[in-house]
């Protein structure tokens, strides 16, 4: 598998990815690509980033064996990669610290970001604090209501949160608005994109910044169990925690990798966010990837109980991995995700965010198929504080 070398020089992962952007943004994308290539192997940059990741964000995160959870299923061993223990409560900070440093190197004074659940918004506002950058976060008006706590946090951190009232008023539209801002202020502004989506170089760059999750996991599981895992499980919205988690294992053919999409009320209803399971290739936000769209090519609204998975497309590398068969993609409903939340909370005393609760929601399907020697690792991408209100309404 050639994935180590992907994307190609134009940002393609097979037929996916690329750079479908208005001309005004081409220069910014090219500049960013060059800057990223230059710092990628720059020892000073890596050293500085490692410093912030270790002393500020709290890396490495632990790999915890969830013995009660495994006992509940009666077989296999289950480990959790605890990204929920990071500063700001999710894996998003890995990427925002890296891009914040990069923005500073590019001489930009302002960052704009989109956010769904608010986790990336909070992580962006935090990174902007650390690096002295002005920060504007676009957020769908519907999401602002669902995630009021995170909105308040961003404001406390000194960021300006701009509500987006267009379209579905969720992550998709917040992304449109962030791109419009970037087009307008491209000379002094860096677009701090929060997932492995968007035009080249973002999908590959954000993956590289998140790969720390998988690299640590690999070392930790070998140390803890003396072998590689049998299964990896992570939720996929745009797909940044999963891509960072999966990538270092892609060449290990014996590791079975499963990405979990949000099935909302069910993939046979119109209310889901399962782009890979139910979409077809299309172009949105500067990339070609699986996309939820109607027969005329208009983008459909995604639905998920978790704002962070509520996105009608997915990172182009996921589309590539789906077609190549290396990663299997499954969808888990709102109801099963809530069960996953409940299970982990009651058995292990860990409240997961509703995004990784989808991955946990797949365990009842997966575990009966495992052997007792099998090791399953779930990427626990964020903690559940932000979702308590939603959970309260449903459980």
């Amino acid at each position, binding site marked *: 598998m050639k994935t180590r070398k992907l994307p190609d020089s134009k940002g393609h992962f097979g037929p996916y990815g690329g750079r479908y952007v208005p001309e005004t943004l081409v220069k910014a994308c090219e500049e960013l690509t060059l800057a990223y290539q230059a710092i990628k192997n720059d020892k000073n940059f890596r050293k500085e980033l490692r410093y912030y990741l270790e002393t500020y964000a709290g890396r490495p995160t632990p790999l915890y064996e969830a013995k009660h959870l495994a006992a509940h299923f009666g077989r296999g061993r289950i480990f959790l990669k605890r990204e929920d223990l990071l500063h700001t409560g999710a894996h998003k900070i890995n990427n925002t610290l890296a891009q914040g440093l990069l923005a500073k190197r590019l001489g930009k004074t302002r960052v704009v970001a989109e956010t769904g659940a608010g986790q990336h918004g909070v992580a962006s506002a935090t990174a902007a604090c650390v690096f002295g950058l002005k920060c504007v976060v676009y957020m769908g008006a519907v999401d602002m209501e669902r995630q009021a706590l995170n909105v308040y946090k961003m404001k406390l951190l000194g960021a300006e949160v701009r509500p987006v009232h267009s379209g579905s008023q969720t992550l998709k539209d917040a992304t*449109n608005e962030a791109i419009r801002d970037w087009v307008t202020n491209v000379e002094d502004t860096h677009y701090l994109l929060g997932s492995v989506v968007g035009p080249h170089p973002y999908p590959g760059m954000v993956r590289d910044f998140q790969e720390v999750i998988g690299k640590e996991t690999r070392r930790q599981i070998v140390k803890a169990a003396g072998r590689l895992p049998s299964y990896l499980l992570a939720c996929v919205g745009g797909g940044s925690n999963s891509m960072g988690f999966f990538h270092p294992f892609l060449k290990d053919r014996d590791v079975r990798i499963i990405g979990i999409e949000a099935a909302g009320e069910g993939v046979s209803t119109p209310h889901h966010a399962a782009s890979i399971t139910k979409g077809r290739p299309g172009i949105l*936000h500067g990339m070609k990837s699986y996309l939820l769209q109607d027969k005329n090519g208009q983008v459909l609204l995604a639905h998920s109980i978790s704002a962070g998975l509520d996105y009608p497309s997915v990172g182009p590398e996921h589309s590539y991995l789906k077609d190549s068969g290396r990663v299997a993609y499954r969808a888990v409903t709102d109801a099963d995700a809530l069960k996953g939340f409940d299970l982990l909370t009651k058995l292990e005393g860990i409240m997961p965010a509703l995004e990784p609760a989808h991955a946990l929601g797949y365990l009842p399907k997966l575990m009966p198929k495992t052997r007792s020697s099998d090791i399953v690792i779930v990427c626990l991408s964020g903690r559940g504080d932000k979702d308590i209100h939603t959970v309260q309404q449903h459980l």
Partner: protein
Amino acid sequence: MKNYLTIKIQEARKKKRKLFCVFLTLGYPSIAATERLILSSEKAGVDIIELGFPFSDPLADGPTIQFSSEQAIKKNVTIQDALALVRRLRQKGSRIPILFFGYFNPVFSYGGKDFVRDARSAGMDGLIIPDLPPEEEEEFQKACRKQKLQRILLVAPTTQDKRAKMLVGKSQGFIYYVSLRGVTGARKALPGDMKAHLLKLKRMTPKPVLAGFGISTPEQAKNISRMSDGVIVGSAVIEHLKRGVPSAERFIEKMSRAVHGA
């Protein structure tokens, strides 16, 4: 089939006539209104029509065109509607050059090559796809060349000289100069570096250079036509259209006189 864009540009060059291009959102407020506006624009001396195809996520557009697109999508406007409209106009004897203006996904969903073939046979003369740079979709670009559907490329204030040369070389018909950093929509003032950019582009190519984005008054249209080969007006037309088709028609006439008097 004749390409009216090619003919129009040759004529304009001979007569030293400035080009006035009007953008309309297909289906806003209705397909019948779009049809009427194209016919009345032709009478008012408009040189080129950009037929804007509505998309759910128009990320290069400001609030005005976002609004007209949303309204048109609510009416379920399809690519087939765009093709049928152009076919009808040609049957009625309309000779105004018509360019398809739209984001790539609806075209891709229709099938790139099928679209090029069907657009050309319906009587479209060219296309502008703001989110499709020349580096992507080689097959599609080839199909455009083969069918002689002219592909107009955009050059922005942020475009580096080397790239501008490449774009100018590849653009067919004319060059669309994006007059500002930002999204479409009426602006009170246009950037001061516009003249220098336009002059630089003019030195690179004998092809006409038209400026668009933000142009909303006859005064602006006149001034910018003097430093370019013409202007493209979209959001300002849609703003007038919100008050009714006659209001938009009067505005188009006024703008046409301003451009052609320049």
